[in-house]
């Protein structure tokens, strides 16, 4: 009986309220149910997916804010002492936003043809974009502005190759 009371107390005390004010971009409505979940412990992947969707939509539609801070969460998560136990909802979504932005830029520009018009000749080149941790590190190091458009992100992440 005593243990049942203790368990019930823990069950009442543990799920503290988590209010989310939704402002999801158009096209991510399927994640509106994910938002209301309060446990990061069991839903990390879903929160990251929600962030990815939001990040892709933001990059495509308008501009994306504070991407260096968002990407530093990915690095922090890789180096953290306690792993998932020190991951909050905000951090999971920020990680998703960073990964989603990188994915959007990669899908749009990688292996795309670019014509460089110099004075004497025009040459064909291709974009080669970074992906994964390399891109994350690049953004943490060099994305200093408050917001970026997609083309500006492309200039950071992609090189022109033959």
């Amino acid at each position, binding site marked *: 009986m005593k243990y049942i009371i203790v368990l019930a107390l823990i069950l009442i005390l*543990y799920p*503290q309220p988590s209010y989310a004010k939704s*402002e999801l971009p158009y096209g991510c409505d399927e994640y509106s149910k994910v938002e209301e979940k309060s446990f*990061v412990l069991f839903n990390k992947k879903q929160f990251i997916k929600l962030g990815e969707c939001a990040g892709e939509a933001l990059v495509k539609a308008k501009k994306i804010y*504070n991407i260096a801070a968002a990407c530093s969460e990915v690095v922090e998560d890789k180096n953290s002492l306690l792993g998932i*136990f*020190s991951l909050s*909802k*905000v951090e999971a979504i*920020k990680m998703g936003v960073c990964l989603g932005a990188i994915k959007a830029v990669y899908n749009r520009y990688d292996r795309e043809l670019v014509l460089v018009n110099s004075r004497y000749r025009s040459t064909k080149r291709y974009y080669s974009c970074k992906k994964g941790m390399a891109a994350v590190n690049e953004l943490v190091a060099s994305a200093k502005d408050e917001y970026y458009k997609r083309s500006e992100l492309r200039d950071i992440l992609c090189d022109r190759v033959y």
Partner: protein
Amino acid sequence: MQSTTTNTEYTASPSALNEQKNNAVHTDESKYQFVPLTKNESSFLNKKRKSWKFANPKDLYTFRDQPVGIFNHLLHIVIFLVCLFLLISIYYLPFDQEFINGVGSYNTITPLERFSRTLLVGLILFNLNSLRVNLKAYPIKRYWFAMAANSLLKVVILNIYYLLLIFLSMAFVGASKGVDLFSALEMLEDSTNYEQFLIFDTFISFGIIWHAFKFCRKEVKQ
């Protein structure tokens, strides 16, 4: 219910040294050797007995057979409610939210923080419950609220000291790096040592509550 001041066993305790002569028969515990008190000492003892105790569970426990006045009782209830409100507002109300531009605002609480908060609130409830169990064996009038309010206020005061210590040390750390206190606190929150700090903080808070509620777990029986 009961009259604590006329209890015969009570006068055998060392806290009632100046009434020893009448009750020499009942001193079955011979380990307490009675020494004559000087005037200053007895006035000090009397002062301590009658003083109001608000953040002082140790004295309250020592002089637990002194009756608690009705006005003190009301003050204790007020203090208990205020401290409870403080704890609830710190641990439960969602002040900690962060806004992500274009996505919405979400709360920043981590599973570790949740765990530690649950642990601390559970510890407080456990101590209050053990106080209730102790009082069931030996009931004292208006003692539960007095002890609970004293212990909770002591928790709050010790936490204030702890907060001041953190502020002071962060001010020193900030000064060594050439920034002010608040940017030093922000730097701590962003740094990789923050998790270690949180673990340390959990242990310290646990210790504070365990120490402040020490007299709730003690038996009240003489």
